[in-house]
């Protein structure tokens, strides 16, 4: 810091570009409006006033994957739906993050043995950043997952990443 010390007017903050970009990304993880089963009800509940997802900058549920940063896979992923889930994930712009919400999205849930039409975990088709356990998880659990994801995002290297993988996407 010695090179730039005392060169600016008082009131100017100096920081790294990575920190600023990651701070902005962390503070506006916009989820996609997208629910598959009963977990989606719990996700909606998380968005409403009592739990208020907006406190963490994630209340703006976008109706298109192109404006979304975060995909909350909330519910049972059937084989029929799996192709759509994958398509939606591919349409999202980088950087993109995935929260697998509930037992069904994690591992097939109650359908893990006899559910012939159910995908046994959404991580078989798209990379998952955070898994939330529960059937369905309580809103606190989803908030916890979001905060965990935010902590991972703020630590990611963006400008200076080089070959080191950032969190999410290709990891």
């Amino acid at each position: 810091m010695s090179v730039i010390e005392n060169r600016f007017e008082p009131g100017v903050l100096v920081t790294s570009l990575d920190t600023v970009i990651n701070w902005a990304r962390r503070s506006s993880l916009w989820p996609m409006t997208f629910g598959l089963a009963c977990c989606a009800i719990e996700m909606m509940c998380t968005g409403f006033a009592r739990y208020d997802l907006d406190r963490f900058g994630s209340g703006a549920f976008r109706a298109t994957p192109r404006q979304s940063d975060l995909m909350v896979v909330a519910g049972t992923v059937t084989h029929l739906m799996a192709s759509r889930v994958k398509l939606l994930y591919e349409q999202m712009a980088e950087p993109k993050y995935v929260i697998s919400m509930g037992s069904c999205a994690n591992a097939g849930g109650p359908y893990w043995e006899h559910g012939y039409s159910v995908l046994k975990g959404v991580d078989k088709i798209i990379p998952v950043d955070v898994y939330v356990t529960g059937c369905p998880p309580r809103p606190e659990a989803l908030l916890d997952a979001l905060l965990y994801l935010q902590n991972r995002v703020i630590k990611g290297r963006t400008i200076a990443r080089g070959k080191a993988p950032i969190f999410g996407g290709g990891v």
Partner: protein
Amino acid sequence: MDIDSIADRLSSLFPGSVRGIEKEHAGDPFLVMDPARLVEVCMHLRDDQEMRFEWLMCLSGVDYPPETIAVVYHIHSQTHGQKLVLKVLLARSEPRVPSVESVWKMANFHERECYDMFGVDFEGHPDLRRILLPEDWEGHPLRKDYVYPESYRGVTNKA
């Protein structure tokens, strides 16, 4: 009208259309129908002023291995507050029954589901495709001898 008088009426108007009345089972009594005359009988049940079964509540399939698949029609009359159950028994090797979509529009999706799950061919259905499972799915899952697929499109089905 009770089920006996309905059966008598149908038998006199459409000879051979009612193959039997089953009242011994637990649950609703039902008429076993002849698949060949099903559509005209259903049209009469819907339009006759004394019956007016204008609502198809449920259309479902039942697998009775080794030889039979049944299609069950639960119909209801809003006008007279009355229910009726019809059943057709089909050969399991080649289940085929005329579509009642022309009588009750809501049979459309129900018949597609029954086709999806049991493989029943509803003749005359305007759009007989799978409704719940992917188009290229093999087999009909609610048949008793259905074998669970190991994978679908390269994605394993094992836990």
